[in-house]
């Protein structure tokens, strides 16, 4: 979907840079980084012919589907097409678990459901799991170790298909131990933040891309972006046309 972002993520390597990779997307207030989720979903649904599992927590499945369709990405399969997209709404899953008084912990409940949905796809291929808020288990009272183990389990499931794990967080590493752990653990860290004054009105915010995999010092790239009604445009810093 976003060519500039792909080139930066590839960072000089010619191979498919997203196979067996973990990406963390951190959005700092007041920005919202959900447009990046659509980018990764589009990569797997259009290019890689893989399967996508969306673990929705901040928004409903209907919201994500309708926004994706405005960006030209059809998440739900049409009639006669193989099923390659599934969405797991965490609030309904957890409320069901509480009402049914199941003794299992929330993370076990989540992993069982993920496993069931992963086997529901019509075709085999690399799996992309997108979780829009990976900190929710902590907020619901799970321990740091249980949350870490859940993330490791999701990573194992994804890597067994040579896929990609994309995790969204809302707090910075300074505020949360889990966010700091993700900074060390992930291969790519994408941070969206608002820009200061003095920039063109055409710029909504900036994305900092850190390539961390196997490096002593991570490489930093910076892109500005503009959110339109039906599009997202990436601009190299300083190249946005001034609006007079």
């Amino acid at each position, binding site marked *: 979907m976003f060519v500039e972002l792909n080139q930066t993520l590839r960072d000089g390597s010619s191979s498919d840079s997203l196979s067996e990779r973990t990406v963390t997307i951190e959005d700092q207030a007041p920005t919202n980084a959900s447009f990046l989720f659509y980018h990764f979903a589009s990569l797997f649904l259009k290019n890689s012919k893989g399967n996508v599992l969306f673990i929705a927590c901040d928004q409903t499945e209907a919201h994500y589907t309708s926004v994706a369709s405005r960006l030209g990405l059809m998440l739900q399969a049409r009639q006669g097409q193989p099923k390659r997209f599934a969405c797991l709404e965490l609030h309904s899953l957890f409320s069901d678990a509480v009402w049914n008084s199941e003794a299992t912990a929330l993370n076990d409940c989540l992993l069982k459901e993920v496993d069931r949905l992963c086997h529901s796809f019509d075709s085999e291929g690399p799996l992309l799991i997108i979780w829009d808020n990976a900190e929710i288990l902590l907020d619901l009272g799970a321990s740091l170790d249980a949350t870490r183990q859940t993330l490791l389990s999701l990573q*194992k499931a994804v*890597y067994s298909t040579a896929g990609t794990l994309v995790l969204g967080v809302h707090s910075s590493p300074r505020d949360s*131990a889990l966010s*700091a752990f993700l900074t*060390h*653990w992930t291969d790519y860290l994408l941070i969206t933040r608002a820009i200061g004054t003095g920039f063109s009105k055409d710029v909504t915010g900036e994305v900092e891309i850190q390539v961390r995999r196997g490096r*002593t010092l*991570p490489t930093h790239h910076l892109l500005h972006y503009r959110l339109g009604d039906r599009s997202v445009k990436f601009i190299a810093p300083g190249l946005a046309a001034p609006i007079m």
Partner: protein
Amino acid sequence: MQEPLFEGVTLIEDGAECSGQSLVGCFVKKAAVRFTNVVVALFDNSKESFEQHLSSLPTSVTVLDFYREPLPSFADYEAALSRGGSLQKGVLFIESLTALQWVHGGGVDRTCSLLHHLAKSNAVVALLHGELLSPLEVKRLAYVADSYYKLSADNETAIASCLIRRGNGKLVSSTESFSVTPDFRLIVQERASGGKPRVEDFIPPKSTAAAAPVINVPFDMGLKLSANERLAKQSIKLPYTAAQSEEGLVGLNATGSKKMKAGGQIIYVPDVADDLDDSDPDDDLMI
């Protein structure tokens, strides 16, 4: 950078701006050369990923894959690490000490005592992510360590501050910039001097056959000597060899004004103004 001693507990603290994974890779490769028993306990990365990172895993390295087979409690990890590291004298690498801290029943106290226990039979090298712990916890762990490497970044340069506690109580500290090449050679440059970078070649040459052989070449090359001539040549005492022996020095009176010839020996003749007392000349420095 001070070379790792592989004695007691070595801690490497990294941060978000400077990862310690590559340095651990260097240390694993070095330990694999020096020790026959090297154990690596993985928590956050799989064995395949670790192998891929190191490009090839030395045969003497055993991997405890807690990533694929996590254990339920800290006590289980204690038992597994003690079992894995107590076969022979060797080195035990713990990929993430932070993961151990988070495990049910863990904490700084138990981690410190576990490190002490493991260090009795093996050298222990552990990686620690500084931001994931409170400053007090980091200080307590640093106090346990015999060698402590703190990694940071400054202007796109990786910096390592080392503090090594020697057995005689001496503290050795240094701050140097470093980088790790893809084949896990460590390139170190001193921060203060800004001198020429040196390569800490932790991995010795593969075999002695590769090293240039030392050839004992006689000094009569091309002379075409007969056996008698060669024997006569070998029996000649060269003039400087006599000067090197201490003959003639016994009974020498050095206080006289007469010039002396004593070969290559250095003879100190005290001057009238010399103050030759036995006290320590540096005792007023209050060291």
